[in-house]
């Protein structure tokens, strides 16, 4: 089987029947990375040697019949997760030399299962971006067309899964950073409910919005990986102590009789006609499966980008205060006192987008502007959250596009930050409301770029959206298409 066809569920069975080994599939992934990543740039750090060692240990465990669900599966991690002994840059020059002394809880959970960590994946600097172009390691490229962005901020994670470099990956999602790159790269991505997955050891961007989630090749893998990372963690006081259901067990229950809401504010002018056509076709698929499609309204949708860019930047300005050149990271100091060192370190270490967000957030929190900007945004956040609560009184889940367009071209939106921010209009409200949502492939543009369908669930309703996603996947074959790798980058676009 080619590397880009490997799935968690498929490999589990092959391991069990001893038709392949973890060492063999890990080597297959490493070869695939070697042959594709010079172009795609999905990896920031490779862990070949350690990966093969872990794979060998996993094979022993499999032989002994002591395997867990994910034992021996080669995965990639967004470079935002602290990994003990493995460099973790968060896409930033300021963490260029940072080697964590501990594992994030999700990494610890995967290691306990015997997962093979193949490497650390490219991302927008501190997860601030929608195109992977703000990475200090340079942009990862979209495997469907290297002239286009893969989306962001978990761009490397989506690329690695789409290109067959890893079987699955973890990303994080603050305003769409799992769902939008998953949509742009034609893979499955899920942002869990706030509090569902521990954020301990995940480098913080906006603490009231950040969540960790899976990026996979199919819905069943998504259910398996979510099940492995979800659950309460005493080290993250915002993680919620409620039982983790068996997501895989309920996948096949179907959508007959389910009420699926179509929020009219998501089908607006500005939505690309090709995206609209694909989403409309998906609606018909659900109708055919016996679901009840219901028009609903989320009236404050249009305010969500403005609300988000105050709250997220305010929280970021506070979280990123820790990068001061004292305890870890790269220090810049050419004489002078402590304050000079702070300024030199931060000015040299942060890129333009991160500086812009720190500045906006600092401004929104500063004396005289706090009420007008920060508190105002938190009040609007309440209205946005109430929109969802009201909608979920009528329906079981919501169906929308993930992004207004398919992947845009490299460099297309870098000059105008506001245009870049507006590309997250359909994903941001979910983070503000704190609920769960996922992206699944639902079609292609004429240019051959993938289009994503968003399913939004009630808080802790991950099982519902996975079930609906699985039903759609069974009825369609979009998820089976793979990038053909025959397109070359235009010389003038790089």
């Amino acid at each position, binding site marked *: 089987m080619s590397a880009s066809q490997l799935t968690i569920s498929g490999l589990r069975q092959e391991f069990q029947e001893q038709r392949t080994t973890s060492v063999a599939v890990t080597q297959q992934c490493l070869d695939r990375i070697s042959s594709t990543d010079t172009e795609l740039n999905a990896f920031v750090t490779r862990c070949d040697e350690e990966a093969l060692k872990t794979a060998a240990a996993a094979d022993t465990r499999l032989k002994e019949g002591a395997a867990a669900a994910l034992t021996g599966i080669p995965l990639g991690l967004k470079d935002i997760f602290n990994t003990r002994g493995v460099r973790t840059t968060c896409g930033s020059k300021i963490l260029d030399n940072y080697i964590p*002394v501990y594992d994030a809880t999700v990494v610890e959970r995967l290691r306990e299962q015997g997962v093979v960590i193949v490497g650390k994946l490219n991302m927008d600097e501190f997860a601030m971006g929608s195109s992977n172009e703000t990475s200090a390691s340079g942009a990862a490229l979209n495997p469907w067309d290297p002239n286009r962005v893969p989306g962001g901020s978990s761009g490397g994670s989506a690329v690695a899964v789409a290109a067959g470099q890893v079987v699955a990956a973890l990303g994080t999602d603050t305003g769409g950073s799992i769902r939008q790159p998953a949509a742009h790269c034609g893979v499955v991505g899920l942002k869990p409910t706030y509090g569902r997955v521990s954020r301990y050891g995940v480098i913080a961007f906006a603490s009231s919005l950040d969540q960790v989630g899976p990026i996979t090749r199919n819905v069943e893998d998504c259910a398996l990986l979510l099940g492995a990372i979800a659950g309460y963690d005493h080290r993250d006081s915002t993680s919620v102590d409620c039982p983790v259901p068996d997501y895989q067990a309920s996948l096949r229950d179907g959508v007959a009789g389910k009420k699926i809401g179509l929020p009219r504010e998501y089908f607006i002018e500005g939505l690309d006609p090709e995206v609209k056509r694909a989403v409309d076709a998906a609606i018909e698929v659900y109708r055919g499966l016996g679901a009840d499609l219901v028009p609903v309204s989320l009236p404050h949708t249009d305010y969500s980008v403005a609300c988000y860019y105050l709250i997220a930047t305010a929280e970021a300005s506070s979280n990123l205060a820790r990068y001061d050149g004292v305890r870890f990271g790269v220090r810049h100091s050419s004489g002078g006192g402590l304050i000079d060192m702070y300024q030199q370190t931060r000015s040299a270490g942060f890129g333009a987008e991160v500086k812009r967000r720190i500045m906006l957030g*600092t401004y929104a929190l500063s004396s005289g502007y706090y009420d007008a900007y920060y*508190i*105002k945004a938190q009040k*609007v956040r*309440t209205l946005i959250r109430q929109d969802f609560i009201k909608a979920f009184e009528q329906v079981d889940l919501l169906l929308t596009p993930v992004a207004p367009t398919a992947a845009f071209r490299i460099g297309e939106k870098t000059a105008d930050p506001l245009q870049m921010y507006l590309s997250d209009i359909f994903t941001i409200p979910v983070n503000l409301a704190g609920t769960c949502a996922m992206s699944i492939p639902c079609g292609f543009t004429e240019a051959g770029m993938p289009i994503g369908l968003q399913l939004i669930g009630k808080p802790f309703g991950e099982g519902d959206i996975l079930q609906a996603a699985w039903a759609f996947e069974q009825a369609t074959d979009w998820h089976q298409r793979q990038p053909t790798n025959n397109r070359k980058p235009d010389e003038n676009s790089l």
Partner: protein
Amino acid sequence: MKITEEDVTYVAGLARLSLTPEELQTMTGQMDAILDYVDKLNELNTDDIVPTAHAVPMANAFRADQVRPSIGVTSALANAPQEVDNCFQVPRVIE
């Protein structure tokens, strides 16, 4: 103009960033455009609305007051740009 170069310079000081003259000019223009955009929030009357700090309502999260192992001095200093006598070393603090 929502924001001037003087305002931006002041905020940069609060954020411990120093901006080059070109950065200052670009940053001022971009922040002005973004602040102009976020002004649309004022179309909404929010007088009686309670602000949301966290999407999942929760009170203080307490845990048992138990001693657990911590990372220790060696690990804590492992990434220090400069250290001396088991401490982080920084440039002079008092002018």
